[in-house]
């Protein structure tokens, strides 16, 4: 059970308080109807799935309830950093 630093609670908390919410920084297009099928597919389904440095979202669902972003190495499972939603990609 990994420990995750919640940037809102500002402490490390156990994984079972959190829900992973998939890749980070995939913004919903402002005008979905203007998207081609391929663009929409990319938004919906295409994922980086990197081996290594990964931007992902977590929700501290059984804590402060906030969604936030993280950079984690998917080979070591170690977090590089976590930061609040809306902050620029790190």
């Amino acid at each position: 059970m990994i420990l995750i630093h919640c940037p809102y609670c500002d402490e490390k908390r156990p994984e079972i308080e959190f829900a992973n919410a998939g890749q980070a920084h995939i913004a919903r297009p402002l005008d979905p109807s203007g998207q081609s099928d391929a663009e929409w597919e990319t938004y919906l389904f295409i994922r980086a799935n990197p081996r290594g440095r990964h931007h992902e979202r977590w929700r501290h669902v059984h804590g402060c309830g906030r969604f936030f972003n993280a950079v984690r190495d998917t080979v070591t499972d170690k977090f590089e950093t976590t930061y609040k939603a809306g902050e620029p990609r790190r």
Partner: protein
Amino acid sequence: MTRFSALSLFTKAFGGHQNWPAQWPDAAPKPAYDAIIVGGGGHGLGAAYYLAKKYGINNVAVLEKGWIGGGNTGRNTTIIRSNYLYDESAHLYDHAVKLWDGLSQELNYNIMYSKRGVMMLAHNVHDVQSLQRHINANRLNGVDNEWLTPEEAKAYCPPLNISPDARHPVLGAALQRRGGTARHDSVAWGYARAAAALGVDIIQNCAVTGIRRGADGAVEGVETTRGYIASKRVGVSAAGNTSVIMQMAGLDFPLESYPLQALVSEPIKPTFPCVVMSNTVHAYMSQSDKGELVIGAGTDQYVSYSQRGALHIVEHTLAAICEIFPIYRRMRMLRTWGGIVDVTPDRSPILGKTPVQGLYVNCGWGTGGFKATPGAGDLLAYTMAKDEPHRINAPFNLDRFRNGRLIDEAAAAAVAH
């Protein structure tokens, strides 16, 4: 290839088993092949075998970054079944089940396919409806699957707890008698040996580091840790690592890779006659021929290539097993391990062509790839040989994520009201 039989075992015994040849030669890469398979798991080795056996392409290399069968082939719970709901899935998995039958003889390698039956439990009214729908669809698709009452389920699998007071009582079960298990390592080794005998090079410790494409965009070959290897046909069958390989060709894929754990108990005398799965309780179990109870756990929730799962997943899995089979509470967990499963948005595989000419893919099998091994191998081989998908794998294309024609078995099991 030395033919395996009781007789050969007998005669070689008198020579102290000194003159058994290598089951497959440890090949070094040649400069070029007619086809390359990236990934030496059961699927990839099977594809190489069928390319050589059925489609006449023998100048084939299988490139494996580690040791063959070392990925999900050697890390799964070996369940085989084909009682899927949608026609597309039922046809795909039943194609595999038909190939499983007789595979030992075809490969001259006992892969120990054991048709002991796979039973899926219903714990609530919604489960009953869902399994009935499966059974009805399977019947009209010619796939065996039958409904058992709780008492019939218990008769088929005596350790099952069918007390109505259980937290998740058993309301019935769907049984596919042709379902069962096979010996996972033997599948990889059997395909490797048979493929090698047909001229396929099995190249281990050879990681692909790049995909070279020509001016027209088509594949020309692959860069590896053992040098450049040319081929105009490259099939990628790399399970959890598919995204990484595809990015070498500039393709982003609708995949995410998660850790999946499994575990076995200490071996005991025969006690558990079939395979039992429960989606509601999240557990599945069988007993290996060695006597170990083989138990599948769930995936962890985050993308990871660490092959390392969390303790709480194991806790939940064993709590579930002990609820369904309370006689095993004193059994002991001997070994746990983790695999990396690649999961698509609709949890069905992608098997076919890619936007890059000459590049083919077989991925996205999630937690269920082992059962498809011969079928996936055959269909990848067909697709590579003909440069077009077989009608069975045609629906499992990449386009479905754009046009919306998803094949979502899990969604069909859906939510409760």
